[in-house]
């Protein structure tokens, strides 16, 4: 490279200024382009050629147990399994692939069936501008659809009534309790049934037993429990392309002020993420969280986690306004591509995965099956994992039927918005006010809604008109 210096200086030709400028301009263009990073979206390589075209199925790593169970039951099935991230946490893998393929044509190795962990994805991918999901109404018998738990297909139904996915499992939030710790600190007092009760127990722990926890404010998805679980109307689709957002609702301010007044944040409400390296599940006296927390967050039976037979699920706390509702986080959907060459086989496969007892009994990590006939055999497999399995079973069923439907599936991640607006304040020491997060969060949600082409309705002018 060093001779470049001398050669650029060597030819002493009497260039005109204009030419020099032009050279500068062209070089500027080249340098700017060369300096720019080009993000290439990788496309999965084509599968090996076989006689009949295999069904291409995309799953996440947690569903590998399903793959094994399926191949054991159907050893000769012609299926190409592809592992991807399940679209986790709004990473939008499916959105990006679909958007590209809609412009360039769908490749032959595009997935026919996909497992998706984001509840809001189906409606986005199944409606314009995407419109890429198969309407399962014509492929899955009505009797099967009717056997899904009440309301569980709401995130799978488009405004025009198409059924564009099958719900795999419920991820409703329950109150997870460590009964050993609870009786140690609170004796024979009954487990709280309200948010106020949980926060009051937290206050007792703050002074008497610091370090023990009644919940968490350190994660981007905590608003799914505190706000969704209190009927706080910040994410309510009220008509085609219209969303209602009201941060001043007493359902929102009630829980927020209760949290602030308790002084629990940073004490018995953990500021550490439940997936953080310093989070100790053995310090959790109780915690509101989805069904799958039971094994995933408390790491039941694993090193550093709680031993088998420790945790018990209780029904989710009643909202501040007294309603018996709860929030949810995760769970999964089975999606079928509209561009599949064999819609009949693809739909039949999705139906099998979502409903077969051979699949739905696998893996406690997954939540309660939403196909009701599978629930009992699934629950019976939990007895070795949780203490008091009958209480846990009952709590799960209660929670699954109490998920508030006013928190709508929308094409943006409410968790990501909570994370980027509220999290840094709530995790600071000392923590800022929870109630003070409601307005900026509502404004940010409104901005996301407008970006996605929604009309925002709000009694708060800063939310309705944008900032």
């Amino acid at each position, binding site marked *: *490279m*060093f*001779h470049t*210096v*001398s050669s*650029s*200086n*060597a*030819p*002493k030709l009497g*260039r005109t200024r204009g030419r*020099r400028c032009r*050279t500068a*301009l062209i*070089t*500027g*263009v080249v*340098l*700017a*382009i*060369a*300096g*720019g*990073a*080009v*993000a290439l*979206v990788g496309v999965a390589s084509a599968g090996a050629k076989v006689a009949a075209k295999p069904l291409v199925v995309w799953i996440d790593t947690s569903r590998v147990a399903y793959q094994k169970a399926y191949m054991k039951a159907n050893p000769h099935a012609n299926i190409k399994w592809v592992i991807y991230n399940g679209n986790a*946490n*709004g*990473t*939008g893998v499916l*959105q990006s692939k*679909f*958007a*590209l393929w809609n*412009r360039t044509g769908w490749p032959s190795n595009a997935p026919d069936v996909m497992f998706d962990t984001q509840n809001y994805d189906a409606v986005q991918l199944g409606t314009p*501008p995407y419109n890429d999901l198969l309407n399962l109404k014509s492929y899955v018998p009505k009797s099967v659809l009717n056997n899904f738990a009440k309301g569980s297909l709401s995130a799978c139904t488009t405004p025009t009534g198409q059924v564009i996915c099958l719900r795999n499992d419920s991820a409703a939030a329950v109150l997870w309790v460590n009964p050993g710790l609870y009786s140690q600190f609170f004796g024979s007092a009954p487990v709280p049934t309200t948010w106020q009760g949980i926060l009051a127990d937290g206050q007792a722990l703050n002074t008497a037993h610091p370090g023990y926890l009644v919940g968490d404010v*350190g*994660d*981007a998805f905590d608003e799914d429990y505190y706000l969704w679980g209190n009927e706080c109307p910040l994410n309510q689709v009220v008509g085609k392309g219209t969303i209602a957002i009201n941060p001043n609702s007493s359902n929102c301010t009630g829980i927020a002020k209760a949290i602030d007044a308790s002084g629990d944040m940073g004490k018995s409400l953990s*500021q550490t*993420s439940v997936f*953080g*390296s310093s989070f100790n599940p053995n310090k959790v006296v109780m915690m509101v969280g989805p069904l799958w927390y039971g094994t995933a967050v408390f790491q039941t039976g694993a090193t550093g986690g709680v031993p088998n037979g420790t945790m018990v699920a209780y029904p989710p706390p009643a909202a501040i306004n007294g309603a018996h509702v709860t929030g949810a986080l995760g769970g999964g959907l089975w999606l079928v591509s509209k561009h599949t060459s064999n819609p009949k086989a693809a739909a039949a496969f999705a139906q099998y995965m979502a409903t077969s007892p051979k699949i739905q009994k696998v893996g406690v990590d997954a939540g309660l099956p939403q196909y009701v006939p599978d629930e009992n055999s699934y629950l019976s497999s939990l007895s070795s994992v949780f203490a008091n399995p009958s209480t846990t079973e009952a709590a799960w069923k209660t929670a699954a039927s109490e998920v508030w439907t006013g928190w709508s599936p929308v094409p*943006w*991640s409410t*968790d*990501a*918005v*909570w*994370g*980027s607006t509220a*999290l*840094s304040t709530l*995790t600071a*020491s000392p923590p800022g006010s929870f109630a003070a997060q409601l307005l900026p969060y509502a404004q940010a949600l409104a901005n996301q809604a407008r*970006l*996605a082409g929604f009309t925002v309705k709000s009694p708060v002018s800063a939310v309705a008109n*944008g*900032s």
Partner: protein
Amino acid sequence: MTVPSATVVPDERASARWGRRAGGQPAGGSRTAGYFFVAFYVVLLLALGIAPTVYAFALALSTPGGLGFAHFINTFNFFDFAPAFEHILEFEGIWLVSQTILVVILALMVHTLVRRVSSAFRFVFYLPGAMAGAASVVVWLFMFDPHTSPWAFVLHGFHYRLLANTVAPGNLPVIFAIMAFFTGAGGWIVIMYGALNNIPRELIEAAEIDGSNAFQTALRIKLPLIRKWIVYMLVLSFAAGSQLFVEPQILGVATVGEISPQWSPNQLAYYLAFQLDRFNDAAAISVDLLVIGLLVAVLLVWRGRLFEVD
């Protein structure tokens, strides 16, 4: 102060090796060879540089009613448009200033050292650059998490107890500047060192005989002679920095959303294209970035007299 007229004397041995005639004109045969070699680059430039740029312009300018600037106006009014550019401006300000000052100082220092010691230093400076992009973000995640960082005591000094505290929105420009500095500075130190080596030995000796100390030589002889390389570094770094994408994107995934997926303009464009299927608006933002990069490049090349012969 003006530098002696012949800033860089063509290295005679190099000239001989590259078959130059005395007048500095390449021989006829080597000119053909030159075109031949450049042709490969031109093909790649057309396919991977020019063609996507033309495509981006076509997408950005095509509106339902024919050619127009609707997508530019559209995106300009997005709530995240101005903040994204403010973020980048703040990041570039911190990064480019600190990189320029530190790289030049370190290169000048290394150049005054004995060759054996200096090569060891250059190697050490270059090492962090071996982890670029996604890999470096993962390492930095550990460095910024007070629970895992070897520099936890520094983070505790700022009252950061959690990763979420360290990557709070106000800290992000500094954090990305630190990442970018360690990724890129080593490479630039090596390049600056090369440029310094290109300064004729006689020139430095002459200065020393005239009584110039090491500090004066560095400041008054060496620094002006590598000015063009500094401008070159600024042009490339500005273009790369304005297109910041990988770092905020991966940090956002790792912190489960604490960083907005529309933090930088490039992220906003990606979100528009691949989350909302709005390719035309995304292309408009890409064109904005290209135009800004070009303007700054032209300004620096022109004001920095990058192609002038002294």
